[in-house]
């Protein structure tokens, strides 16, 4: 059975994974609010979802 939680790669929080997740499904970590992507199943592995880096130059 797939895990119902998976560790967030950024802040190590336990991220709830919906039942029967699919590859590259998008999730958001409640703790650090980073957008995550399902990279592997059984067990579920999460990684940061690709994001265009906003230019915030000061």
């Amino acid at each position: 059975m797939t895990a119902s939680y998976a560790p967030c790669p950024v802040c190590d929080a336990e991220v709830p994974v919906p039942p029967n997740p699919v590859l590259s499904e998008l999730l958001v970590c409640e703790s650090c609010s980073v957008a995550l992507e399902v990279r592997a199943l059984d067990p579920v592995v999460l990684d940061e979802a690709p994001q265009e880096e906003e230019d915030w130059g000061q």
Partner: protein
Amino acid sequence: MAKLRVGIVGASGYTGGELLRIFLHHPNAEVVQATSEHHAGRGVGTVHPNLRGRSSLSFSRRDALAPCDALFLCLPHGETAPAAEALLPMAGRVLDLSADFRLRDPAAYPRWYGFGHPRPDLLGRFVYGIPELHRDQIRSSRMVAVAGCNATAVILALHPLFAEGIAPSDGTVVEVKVGSSEGGAAFSVSSHHPERAHCLRSYRPTGHRHQAEIEQELAVRGPVRVHLSATAVDEVRGLLATAHVFPTRAVDEKEIWRLYRRAYGEEPFVRIVKGRDGNYRYPEPKVLWGTNTCEVGFELDAASGRLVVMAALDNLVKGGAGQAVQCFNLMHGFPEAAGLEFPGLHPV
């Protein structure tokens, strides 16, 4: 269940005004007395314009004070201790927003506040008012010394690191950037608008009084020294503390995340803010104007190992009246967030 009767001594100042505002919508309590020697007899709205048409209360004189359930003291530093004799018996519970009873060590007062404490015997009976640190003690106490605004931000930023032994006992540098309302309602040559506007002014590079209560509360594993500097910025409300910690051992981001989540994950008034995108990635005061929330965030410099911890809050609310009401709620068994739900404004 009848509402609890609350009194405010020194209600014409900014923290007094915020207490009046917060209690406008408190489900369990109402303000029945708001003293001000200077404005006695006048409606509270004449001094606090946001209360016009919202409160029918008028200021009364302190000598007309009648016993009530809870009393908030908003007198200047150095004026509360001498008045303790007369004021403490007035209410079952007393919350002091001045610095007069924050420090446990009587000897600290001459050193940091320039006066010998007139009632050292009372110092041990006041609990230091940061619920996130002393929730159980506050619940069972009758007298709370509400923490200072800069101290609240710096302590909430650093406490987890000192408790875990990651922060060293010396060498931590903290800069607080503060607004003009920290100086209170009394005007002066330095608060004159043409002089104060657009300032970026190093007004206390060393010797900031709040350093005493910060070092008192962070001495979890023995005495500590924290090096505090304050810079005034062109704002009225809000403060941002930026702390520079040189960890005692190697740490990584995940460990810091776990540490702060364990410390504050369930706290209603501390929000961990360390984002990747958008305008508000780290704690920022203006988002918190009027709220009782303290935002805490961090960034680890992988190259040097320096851990930068940031904390932002509204110096008049979580750094003053809001934290006082949070303690008040705990002391009376009310929901901790009663009266403190305002989420803040965006954009401001």
